[in-house]
């Protein structure tokens, strides 16, 4: 088992902080020398690492860079050209590959992304709005004082509060954020359903190198990483996508189809995702939500699809069956072990309870962030083959019903049984429930690498 130095790894890359408030300061770097001074200042104000907390801090601080950012920081050319191609190109240049076309195409993105002004991601998570405000003000003051950076876009994010309590809900009403892949060396033990399947059908942690650079991955190889080794080790890559949610469209569609689906609206909603809106996996409980399941970490991600090859409980094209097919493709799930991502995300915009007036044009959605050792092999593959295409799940050209770019003519097949409440059903004319508003690929360096970047001392020779 790899042993990892958690004090050298940004905490964001190791765990979800579970703070209700966040702000992503999307920054443009100015002159190289002041920009490096700015980073030195951030280091002094303490970047949050993966060290275990004796007491939960009021705020956290993490940073990452686009390729343009690293260029502006004057990393040596030998290091720059050693980064993987997709990171060098950035997400905008990959839009055709990712099917970020039509309404999701870069020309419709928000200005900061469209105009390539985002060099650096500074993320502040906080327990209270006041603490968030203070820490962000500190960062911005440092940027101003050093003249190293300015904010191109300030992206707020906040958990949805229900009855005064932060909830894991997203705007469509689903409970989100169940589990992330376990990997060797991470703080917690292996949770059933969250690592990889063994031949005996048990779950164990994935190789560290699937999520952190500088460690062996599932193939026993080191992931493609920049030189020198010290720049890469304990770092990782992140994709950031601002996903706007058309809540009015979603609710109208669900109301319309739910009225004719014999299982009813809520069951149809569960078929879209593979979970009831409270989070109950339909693979385990196809007929009704079960709060006791949702609240049991040993059970809420502990399922496979082997006994449901025809999608009678969880449709073959349901969102969670696509994004993490587990054993759905056979071979004890080995086909998916190199296509896993760690998700971090938080909603933004005001939550509107079901039944209240809502508009697609309101600013509302989720900031989707995912971490992986290879954007190409992990995130991009999932997005292209499993979300925006259906061949692997035997769904032809059908796409992910919930998050894909359907352009108004998507189709989703709900497989069924002879049970009159669980018949086969086809959802046609799917619009885009989710729209991409911008984002990019980021390198999340280790503390060591960050110090070297700040000092301008990276030596690839």
């Amino acid at each position, binding site marked *: 088992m790899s042993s990892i130095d958690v004090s050298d790894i940004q905490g964001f890359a190791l765990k979800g902080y579970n703070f209700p408030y966040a702000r992503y300061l999307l920054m443009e770097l100015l002159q190289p020398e002041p920009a490096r001074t700015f980073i030195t200042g951030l280091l002094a104000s303490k970047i949050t690492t993966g060290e275990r907390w004796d007491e939960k801090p009021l705020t956290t601080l993490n940073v990452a860079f686009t390729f343009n950012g690293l260029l502006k920081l004057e990393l040596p050319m030998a290091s720059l050209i050693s980064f993987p191609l997709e990171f060098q190109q950035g997400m905008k240049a990959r839009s055709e590959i990712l099917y970020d076309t039509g309404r999701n195409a870069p020309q419709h993105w928000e200005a900061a992304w469209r105009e390539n002004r985002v060099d650096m991601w500074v993320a502040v998570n906080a327990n209270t709005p006041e603490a968030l405000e203070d820490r962000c003000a500190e960062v911005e003051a440092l940027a101003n004082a050093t003249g190293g950076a300015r904010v191109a876009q300030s992206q707020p994010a906040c958990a949805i509060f229900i009855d005064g309590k932060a909830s894991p809900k997203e705007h469509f009403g689903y409970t989100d954020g169940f589990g992330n892949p376990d990997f060797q060396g991470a703080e917690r033990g292996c949770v059933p359903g969250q690592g990889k399947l063994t031949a005996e059908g048990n779950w164990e942690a994935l190789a560290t190198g699937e999520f952190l650079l500088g460690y062996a991955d599932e193939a026993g190889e080191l992931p493609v990483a920049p030189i020198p080794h010290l720049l890469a080790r304990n770092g990782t890559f992140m994709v950031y996508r601002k996903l706007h949610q058309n809540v009015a469209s979603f609710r109208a569609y669900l109301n319309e189809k739910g009225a004719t689906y014999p299982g009813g609206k809520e069951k149809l909603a569960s078929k879209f995702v593979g979970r009831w809106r409270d989070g109950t996996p339909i693979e385990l409980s196809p007929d009704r939500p079960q709060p006791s399941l949702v609240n049991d970490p040993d059970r809420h991600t502990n399922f496979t699809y082997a006994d449901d090859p025809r999608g009678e409980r969880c449709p073959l094209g349901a969102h969670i069956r696509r994004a993490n097919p587990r054993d759905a493709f056979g071979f004890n799930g080995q086909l998916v072990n190199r296509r896993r991502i760690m998700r971090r995300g938080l909603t933004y915009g005001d939550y509107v309870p079901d039944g209240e007036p809502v508009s697609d044009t309101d600013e509302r959605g989720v900031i989707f962030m995912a971490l992986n050792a290879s954007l190409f092999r992990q995130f991009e593959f999932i997005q292209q083959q499993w979300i925006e295409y259906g061949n692997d799940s035997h769904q032809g050209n059908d796409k992910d019903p919930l998050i894909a770019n359907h352009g108004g*003519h998507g189709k989703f097949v709900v497989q069924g049984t002879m049970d009159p409440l669980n018949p086969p059903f086809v959802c046609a004319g799917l*619009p885009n429930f989710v729209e991409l508003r911008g984002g990019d690929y980021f390198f999340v360096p280790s503390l060591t690498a960050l110090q070297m970047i700040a000092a301008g001392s990276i030596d690839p020779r």
Partner: protein
Amino acid sequence: MSNTNGQIYGLTILSPIVQDHVLDISHAIELRQYLATLPQDHTSPFSILDSTHMARLVVMDDVVYVGAPACEEHLKSRYLVFETNFDGDLDTYLSRMAAEIGDVVDSVWKHCVGYPGVTDTGAFIAYMKRCQIDTTFFFADVNDHTVKENLKALQVQSALAHFIAHHQGLPPAELQRAFGQLLCSLDKAPLPPPGGLPSEKTPAEDRPHE
């Protein structure tokens, strides 16, 4: 058996390209330039030969030496590589090539050693067979279904999906009547043209609810 998989034939042809050192532009370069002008979509000349699953024309210069410990070897000639998978027997297909896309065949193979032209179909077939090498393993994604069967299946699949989406939940009698109409219309529907079904209409993207 080599070359065939059920009713599908996998043809591999290697035709040596003429080497004439006196020419300003080599045959290989001219051939590459010509191949680059051929459309690769449904307007490809091979879509005229409607039994073709796929076809590929490639100029192979030489084998690439990848360094020690491999030993360095070279081909005696440059070759035109022609790969195609089609329905039916070889003679019929080659005859159709000569008869239906003879001008394209001429423009390609005129750069090859010993090419007799397509006017004498027998000579053309004999030439092609001389250049043929056994195909023991080829891309067989269609599970022994002909091009026509595949096009029909895609047409039926698409029509059926559309039918279900628009008729699900109707009373049985009405459903049966509509289904009968669907079967009738599918029976009468002309086969989609080779090169794929006409792409699904892309309606102007739905405007979100404002």
